[in-house]
């Protein structure tokens, strides 16, 4: 499954970043690396974007970006 399908409160582990280019690179730069644990904190009031906890800090992604991250539920 992909990161955009996660619900707030769920925790998952990254398997693979499936997008390349600027978005893929930015995700990698921000620590979205295979094996990394991600916790979904909350959706924005209009559902998109979503806030995650990665490597001890908080970051928000739009669903379109989160879709590029393949994860497995913990």
């Amino acid at each position, binding site marked *: 499954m992909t990161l955009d399908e996660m619900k707030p409160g769920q925790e998952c582990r990254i398997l693979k*970043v499936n*997008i*390349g*280019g*600027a*978005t*893929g*690179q*930015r*995700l*990698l*730069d*921000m*620590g979205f*690396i*295979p094996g*990394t644990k991600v916790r979904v*904190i*909350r*959706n*924005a*009031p*209009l*559902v*998109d*974007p979503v*806030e995650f906890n990665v*490597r*001890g*800090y*908080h*970051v*928000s*992604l*739009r669903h*379109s*970006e989160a879709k590029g991250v393949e994860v497995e539920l913990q």
Partner: protein
Amino acid sequence: MKKASEEKTVVAVAGQPNSGKSTIFNLLTGARQHVANYPGVTVEKKTGSYRFKGERFELVDLPGTYSLTSYSLEERIARDFLLHEKPALVVDIVDASNLERNLYLTFQLSEMGIPLVIDLNMMDIAERRGLEIDVEELSRRLGAKVVPTVGNRGKGKKELYEAIRETSKDKTRFTPIHIDYGKSIEPILNELEQKLSEDKNLSSHYQPRWLAIKLMENDSEVRKLIDKHSEKGNILSLLKSKRDWFISQYGDAPEKVIAERRYLTASGIAEATVKRKKEVLWTLSDRIDQIVCHRFSGPVILAVIIYLLYKLSIGYGWKLTNYTWPLLASFRDLIASVLPAEGFIHDPFLRAMPLWVINGIIAVLNYVPIFLILFTLIAILEDTGYMARMAFILDRIFRYFGLHGQSTLPLILGGVYVGGCAIPGVMACRGIKCERSRMATIMTVPLMNCMAKVPLYVLLISIFFAEHKGFAMFFIATITIIIALSVAKILNLTVLRKREMAPFVMEMPAYHLPTVQGVLRRCLERTWLFVRKVITIIIAVAIIVYFLISFPGLSKERDAYYGNQASEIRQIFFKEIGDENPYAGTLSGAGFEEFSIYWDDYKKAGIAAKGDEEKEAIDKKFRERNPEFFKIVKSEDKEAAKVNRAYKKLERKRKQLRMEKREETIQGSLLGRTGYFMEPFTRFAGFNWRVNIALLSSFAAKESSVATLGSIYQTEEIGEEKMLEERIKEKEKGWNPLHALAIMLFMAMYPPCIPTLIMVRLEAGSTKWMLFAGIYPIVLGLMFAILVFTGGNLLGLSGLQAMIAFYILAIAVTTVMGLIKRKPKME
């Protein structure tokens, strides 16, 4: 000895966003800072200097970046500076509470081979989170001096100074890190490095291993660099075969593996140097966010903050201008007093022209109190970390239209509802990371309802929509954002199509208490930027506009006519007071001019005076200056009262005559002729030449639109502002609400004022964009005006019906615009 002290050591300050970089920069350099832009781009470049142990250091603040790829402008700028300007050393600001991610950048800096000093900042937050960092071990592993600091409390300043000095003196204190990129990549990296080292031209300028890594990451800028420096692209063809091989072998791009290995190394270092003394599951930030980002309370808090922003800056700022305006006005009067004196009906050029320019300048300076409050509040919002939350909450809406969550603030400042100002709005666009959204925001902020548009709305609504005031005001207040969203989308799909887009990956930094010093510094910096930029250009523009409205001037006959009128007024005055009047003597000849000045001075002094005591003092002064004149001014005896009455009448007539003359000059001027010339066309929008002139001349200052209409619709009685409604109704008997609606919509789309255009030029980075921002609203405004006026007339709609129809149409278009999918992202 002296020579050595004059040499300066250039130090670059790098770091990720939210690492407290600017705090450290301010801490190190103090007030000796200079703000400019990096050449050719709109990214701010701050430099500052300091002296330590007799040596001079010059600091350059690099843009905050998470990485050093070539994907974003900031990263390219930071990297290019390090590559080409070759600073003696880099201070890397690292957020101690977020070590892993920050080390990711540190590694990339270290690989570039420039000596590094690491500032382990925000130690207090790390401690609060229960983290204990072994600084010695970290320093050993990174091959660089590590200095723990708490930037906002000034802790560690001395040590940092010392570390910078030491490392700049003794480069052996730094060893570039060598990250093991793993069995799959290292052999390729070595081969590339070998090849690159052979090229002496390249390897003398750049670190071969760094180049090799960047090439394997498929970095477009480094490829260009190689293309430029090396021969025949044999390195690039080798690279291509290696990358292709790698991808076919491992099924993954090398850049992913490289990033992975960097994070692996970072985790390794963090594990070895950071001890977690206690587990902090819920930080204070998390708890605040539970309310601030909550589905229901989040938007409410946002609305309250926006309301406060308006209320405090524009609401109270305006009140503050009541105190600052007299200062500006007295400055103008001071200048006026040294210029040649005012003529009876004709002012000498050397008076009229400078006063016109000064009026332009002080009209703009009048906004400074508002900006001071506004920029303070924005700096507070930025420093606390709320901006990211604002973007988080509203991104969804904006992105339908090719804007960004970060477009929220600029649009609010521009006046999403009513009464903003486009200048700070455009300036605030700097924070938008996505280039395409940033440009779209810069271009649409001026469509918002700034304070200067409001008087005309109020005037026209109270004449033509008196029965539906509430709805009409709501219409004009909300229609602009609806239109702006569509415009943003259209720009996105057309002229901005090729602009770079940034992925939405936004850090939500922990909340911070802003420091007074940091906030004030930013507020003053921005205000100063505004004042400096605007004043210089406004002078030139004011001069041009002055010529446009005064040339070619009146014909000889008309000039003579006004001259005759003037002397007639004077004759009537003397006839009225009569020859026997004891004051007639003092007023004849030069005495008359003198008395005019005396009269004006007394009036002015009277207005400025507060309280009875001051008034008495003024009276005393004027009595001493000329006891005879004083009697007239005060109507002290019967004859004096007669003179006083007659003079008041004369003054009224004189003002009327001046007004008429000015009006005729404007009508005959280049600008006025353009107004006439355009009438056949603007008729379709319902604008006659009078309106054309008013609209054209308000380009210099929108807030003057009402005043200009006022002077054009001048009748016998002068200066009765509240009568303007009546006057317009009287002169434009054929007008109906459709005329008014057309004018209102045109005003809503009115081109940005000159200071805003100057800011657009600064932020968009080109004159071309500035012209675009000035011209497209005119086209749009005319289109809308023609649509409601001609369309409304054809369909026989009333003003209110046309208003509703236009509103529905605008919403429909905007909805459709929002639904148009963006082109798939470039891969």
